[in-house]
């Protein structure tokens, strides 16, 4: 219940939920195990905003992040949702 949309903020890049069916494809492309991907906390504001759109997201869901990059134009990054985040 926020008055502003976190996802619309300039600093926040695009976050997309990777459907379960495409997860394997992504992991194969990156040649990496899922738990080695960068993490994103379940309580991250961007994830909470995504949950309002897509419904609850489970741990282990892969989030595709499309960043604007000054060198590449845009670059794609993946994070996996975890509840255990180093504080």
């Amino acid at each position: 219940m926020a008055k502003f949309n976190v996802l619309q903020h300039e600093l926040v890049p695009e976050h997309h939920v990777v459907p379960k069916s495409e997860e394997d494809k992504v992991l194969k492309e990156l040649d990496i195990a899922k738990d080695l991907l960068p993490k994103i906390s379940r309580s991250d504001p961007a994830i909470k905003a995504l949950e309002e759109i897509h419904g609850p997201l489970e741990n282990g869901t892969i989030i595709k992040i499309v960043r604007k990059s000054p060198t590449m134009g845009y670059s794609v990054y993946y994070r996996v949702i975890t509840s255990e985040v180093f504080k």
Partner: protein
Amino acid sequence: MPILLFKDTKKNMEVLKKKAPCKYAVDDQITESVKEAYVTSDKKNFIYRIRLSGVEDFKDTPDVIRKNKGDMKSILVVESCDSIDPVPLSQFRKKGKRISEFADFIIAELPTVKMVEKPTYVDSLSQDVKDIIELAAKKKLDLPVSIAEKLIRYKKEMTPAKFDELMNRIGEDLKKKFIDPHEAVGIIAAQSIGEPGTQMTMRTFHFAGVREMNVTLGLPRLIEIVDARRIPSTPSMTVYLKPEFEEDEEAVMKVVKELENTTILDVASIVTDIQQMTLTIRPEPARMKERLVNQQDLIDALSKMKGITLMSQENSEITVKPQQESYKRLYQVQEQLKTTTIKGIPGIKRAIARVEPSTKKWIIYTQGSNLRDVLEVDEVDANRTYTNDIIEISSILGIEAARNAIFNEALRTLSEQGLEVDQRHLMLVADMMSFGGSIRAVGRQGISGRKSSVLARAAFEITTKHLLRAGLLGEVDPLTGVAENIIVGQPITLGTGAVNLVYKPASKGQ
């Protein structure tokens, strides 16, 4: 059963109280099953309760009381309206349930924006650019957008065969530019940031061109960024206003006053009378005027405080007395009074508006930071406003925003000193710091102190602690990193050292 929660003026509610039962027109579409409503007049507490005997569609009849002059949609048939003990918005519960669980309709001070994803950046690219990228993809080439944009012109001028050749050449060139597999990017980044760092001014408290405003810059700021301090030494915000207010000086000044946190000590002096056990607050008219505070604001702020009694008011001087008569309490109350907020947002010490000469648009700079509350201010453009407090960004806008903030801040700090560092080094630092889902510092407490290898940690700092701990717990070091292999005298796992070659003899038949 749904309950209606909304915000309304005190004045309207007083009218309702007198005239109930009556009809009250509101500007929202309301479902008919609503039987109960709670009203807040400020942003914090519900103070009225309304019982409804029904909801009707809006019809303009003379007996209807209108909420305001605008478009009305529904009529509430009010049975009764009464004041209740203030219920804080955040704690509003009904039969043990929180607001979100039962109220299907909330218009109180919780106007929710619909969450929508950002339009995908890829879609915003022109068809020409997409074509070229697709063409490159066929050649197994990941072409950056910036290059694709430059190629549009050549694609039109050249024959397809020639263009194909150009693409091939670009492909070769790009491959040369790639970093080699198993290259030690971290150490290169560390050097590339470290060397210019030696040329930074050691201590600059530079005036950023704004009066009475200073921001940590230079080396101290860079250290602050990579250390991921909880609170930077000079937290500050850059507040943008929504486009409609951006050029309106009056509105800007109003926001400035709204943001600036005014405490009692800012507008008045506090005198302690030990004999009478009282505290007298002497407002200073000039300062009150400057901060746009009036006597009533002061009294309102005081009456919200707990544990004190308002005694008397003479010539604008207010006397208060602690409810408990002890010197200790008197002292406590005095300290408490000093920091009591009259208005403004906690944490924002000063706010200064400055007009951008090129665009004639106003931007507000603040000393002190409170992103959460500032983004809730109506006039503020929540999509552009930011702070230099990276930890705050990570908790309010998320880890990805914090990663971008680290990158932006580091880049800005370096370029302000006239130092040019390749952006990719800073990106690496920002990515490493945000890798685990929260911001980690570079150093003992963060990235370096949490390496998996015992020997690498021991080589970094506090050797004995790590070795002792590893011995106690029986830790195993697989020797996969660089530092640990140097220690044991093996080839390091970089470059060719990271690859294992296996000879596969040709079988007999071949």
